[in-house]
């Protein structure tokens, strides 16, 4: 009888140890698969909101004036400015030269005035083939005017221009290069 009890004790001990082992293994496995820190990164004090895959557009009297796309953005409440990264700024066709698309590394969108400053590797191309590159441009929403104070390289058809400062009127697609103009006009038949 004593032998049978001893066997029962041994079996009970084995079962308890097995359960404990399984429980400990389970707990360890769960803790390993859980993320170390699930908290969101802390935003700078001036940033109210961080956004991904942004799309802004301005529509006036049912007509789209421009569209702004960005991979990432941060809203600065104090300045009422949205800081954008990897930006595409689209000025729709007004009947001349087609749509103009500007890309840049960064942009600042003024929420109140709807003005946009693009900076870093600014590149523009129109459907008609007009292109320009510069380091920084400012879009004045009230005048529908794109301006730059920096060195600009502009090409349109047979005209290639380098100069300092530029104005592009969005409605007419007319361009002004403001200083130190050097141009090459290719002549004769193409190809």
């Amino acid at each position, binding site marked *: 009888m004593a032998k049978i009890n001893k066997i029962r004790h041994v079996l009970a001990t084995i079962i308890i140890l097995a359960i404990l082992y399984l429980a400990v293994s389970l707990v360890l496995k769960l803790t390993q698969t859980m993320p170390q820190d699930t908290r969101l990164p802390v935003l700078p004090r001036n940033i109210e909101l961080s956004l991904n895959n942004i799309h802004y557009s301005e529509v006036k009297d049912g007509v789209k004036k421009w569209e702004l796309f960005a991979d990432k953005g941060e809203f600065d409440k104090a300045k009422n400015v949205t800081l954008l990264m990897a930006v595409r700024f689209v000025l729709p066709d007004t009947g001349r030269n087609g749509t103009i698309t500007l890309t840049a590394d960064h942009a600042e969108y003024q929420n109140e005035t709807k003005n946009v400053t693009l900076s870093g590797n600014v590149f523009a191309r129109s459907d008609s083939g007009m292109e320009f590159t510069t380091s920084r441009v400012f879009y004045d929403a009230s005048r529908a005017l794109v301006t730059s104070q920096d060195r600009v390289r502009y090409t349109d058809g047979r005209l290639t221009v380098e100069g300092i400062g530029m104005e592009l009127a969005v409605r*007419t697609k*007319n361009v*002004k290069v403001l200083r130190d103009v050097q*141009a090459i006009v290719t002549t004769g*038949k*193409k190809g």
Partner: protein
Amino acid sequence: MLLSLLGGEVFAAQPLSGDRGGQPITIKSNELATDSKSRTATFSGNVTARQGDLTIYADRLTVYYLAKGGEVEKVEASGNVRVVQGDRLATAREGVYLNKEQKIVLTGEPKVFQGENAVSGKVITYYVNEQKSVVTGGADARVEAVIHPKEKGKDDGKKR
């Protein structure tokens, strides 16, 4: 009155400069304004335009493009226009360079100089490939030519 100055002692014709119409035009200026509607590019302020050995100086220069193909149709220069090719100089208030025809039509007291020789009239058409000028007079601007004949002795000396 039409006076064509071909060869001779005043404006001697020289060999053609090749296909000038196919050569690029390089332009320097203070400012540039393009107009997509009129298909023009207007350069202003100390404009210098060069195509091969031909240089045009002006206060303002407008390049006109053809709608089809975007080829340069003509170049209009205005204000203190000076055209220089080799030892030839032409001056006028306005000038139009027709790219296809390879000629420059100068108006506004036009004058052509070569060394000490000079010709003026109402309109001067300068054929850039042939390097010849056609001077046209009018009621208020007769053709005037000032020619300094070369000294025979000097010429003879050069030929020896």
